[in-house]
């Protein structure tokens, strides 16, 4: 009965729906942001300039992809129920789990494409800028610059510019947005409106950012904690995904290396949260009276 083709049909339809809602207009804001970041900080040293460009780009990518994940997902199921479109889908031989997975896959596709577009723009600006900085550096030299010096400048500048490690940061941004989408999908299965879904998902998103800090503080107070308290703390860790873990880009823009084990952990966590939230969403949605 389970049909990947039907899931794919729903996913493609979800993707088309969001694309035709003209969500990609956000690219204009993103472009303005990174071009603005580029122009505003020209007077800084090149290290600072490139770091700011990467920080602003990663920050904007993370923000936009998470907003997309939450708002895009929140628009899907409540709207389908409100418009009764859901009736026409579920009265075809479509199990409810397929509908949910199709919607989730569709929003993940949209997030992936939008991150891809943002990355292309980010990399293009970074590429142009690092070559610009190199040219300015060579031009600012009072005497003839030797090949060896040019090579040294290039290494110095490019090592802070377009590096393959940035791709890992982009993957982390995608994984974080994917978890946010799974949270919003779950909320939308019991929510009565789009607005409610957005608000509750944002609350979970912010708690998810603060939870590790709060738990660290709680456990660092040095008191003995009962099993119940530890269980409760663990439960919070499951219910509210630790979004802070996905914020690896801050270190990345400062030159830190993302280890393979950290990436594997992030991938594992994302798979865990996507599975848990999809299953719980299904449990709620399977019994939902429409």
């Amino acid at each position, binding site marked *: *009965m389970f*049909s990947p*083709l*039907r899931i794919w*049909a*729903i996913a493609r*339809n979800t993707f*088309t*729906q969001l694309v*035709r*809602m003209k969500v990609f207009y956000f690219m204009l804001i993103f472009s303005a942001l990174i071009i603005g970041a580029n122009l505003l900080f020209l007077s800084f040293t090149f290290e600072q300039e490139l770091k700011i460009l990467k920080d602003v780009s990663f920050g904007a990518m993370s923000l936009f992809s998470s907003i997309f994940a939450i708002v895009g997902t929140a628009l899907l199921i409540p709207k389908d129920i409100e*418009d*009764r*479109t859901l*009736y*026409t*889908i*579920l*009265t*075809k*031989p*479509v*199990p409810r789990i397929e509908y949910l997975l199709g919607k989730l896959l569709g929003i993940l596709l949209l997030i992936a494409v939008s991150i891809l577009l943002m990355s292309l723009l980010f990399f293009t600006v970074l590429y142009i800028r690092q070559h610009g900085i190199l040219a300015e550096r060579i031009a600012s030299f009072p005497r003839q610059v030797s090949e060896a010096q040019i090579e040294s400048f290039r290494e110095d500048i490019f090592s802070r510019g377009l590096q393959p490690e940035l791709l890992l940061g982009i993957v982390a941004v995608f994984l974080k947005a994917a978890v946010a989408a799974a949270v919003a999908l779950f909320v939308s299965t019991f929510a009565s409106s789009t607005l409610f879904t957005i608000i509750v998902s944002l609350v979970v998103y912010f708690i998810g950012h603060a939870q590790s800090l709060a738990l660290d503080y709680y456990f660092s107070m040095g008191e003995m904690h009962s099993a119940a308290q530890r269980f409760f703390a663990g439960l919070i860790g499951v219910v509210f995904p630790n979004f802070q873990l996905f914020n690896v880009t801050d270190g990345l823009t400062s030159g830190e290396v993302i280890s393979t084990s950290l990436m594997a952990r992030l991938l594992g966590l994302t798979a865990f949260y996507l599975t848990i939230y999809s299953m719980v969403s299904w449990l709620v949605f399977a*019994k939902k*009276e*429409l």
Partner: protein
Amino acid sequence: MANSSTPAVQIEGLTKVFRLPFKKEQVVAVDNLSLKVGAGEVYGLIGPNGSGKSTTMKVLLGLISPSAGKASIFGLDSGDTASRGSVGFLPENPYFYKYLTGSETLAFYGKLCGLSRRKIRVRSEELLEMVDLTGARDRRLGGYSKGMLQRIGLAQALVGDPRLVVLDEPTAGVDPAGSRKIRDLVLELKHRGISVILSSHLLEQVQEVCDEVGIIFRGKLVREGKLDELIAIEDQSEIVLQNATPQLLERIAALVGEEEGAQLLRCGNPRTTLERLFLQEINKGSRQGGEDA
């Protein structure tokens, strides 16, 4: 596997109770309702607003679960997803994805029914032709009129080649011409041997297309049966004559007078319906418009 004698729809002792949130009160939407729709029959479920028609249909389609009793489609429990393999449904006032075109809409629903790409293409052509939307196939649904939406809705209900079609208020909000088109489509389905269960409060339409009718009131099925039997006035007979002279009518009246207990109740010209008159004038107008052009 259902055989030919398996009813298209069988509902037994269906009860649906809704609990109001944060209140102790309960609303009984459907109360111990039983009905059967034979294969190839057109069944009309009629009743005032809020009488439980839509709730009955939702249980039948597995959108909500019954509080008691059961419903089945061609022998398969309506809670089972497989039962939806032989059903097409048009909800009341449907909104489809307005960013899709007519043919994209049919392709989407065709994929959900598991049809191949080739089959979807063939079926879409056929259905767009049938619902008279071939010219609007590449237009987005956002630009469709109410009647067009109902017709594309009917086409999506038929895309999986169902044996049962469930129509919830199929003509709600549609003008008389559009309404007649939908009526003709229901008759076409009947002609093809497809079972139809429809709810409506437009009684004249139900009378025109249905074989059987059930009257539902406050969640209970208060009357059910073959339409002809239900609406026939047992002790009256009807004769319709063409080109009868006044003399002939007088002779008939005299003949009736000779029979003990028989009585001539009415004699005059039969009336057309307002709907027929409206459509006749519209057609006349459009023919004249065509000639003028």
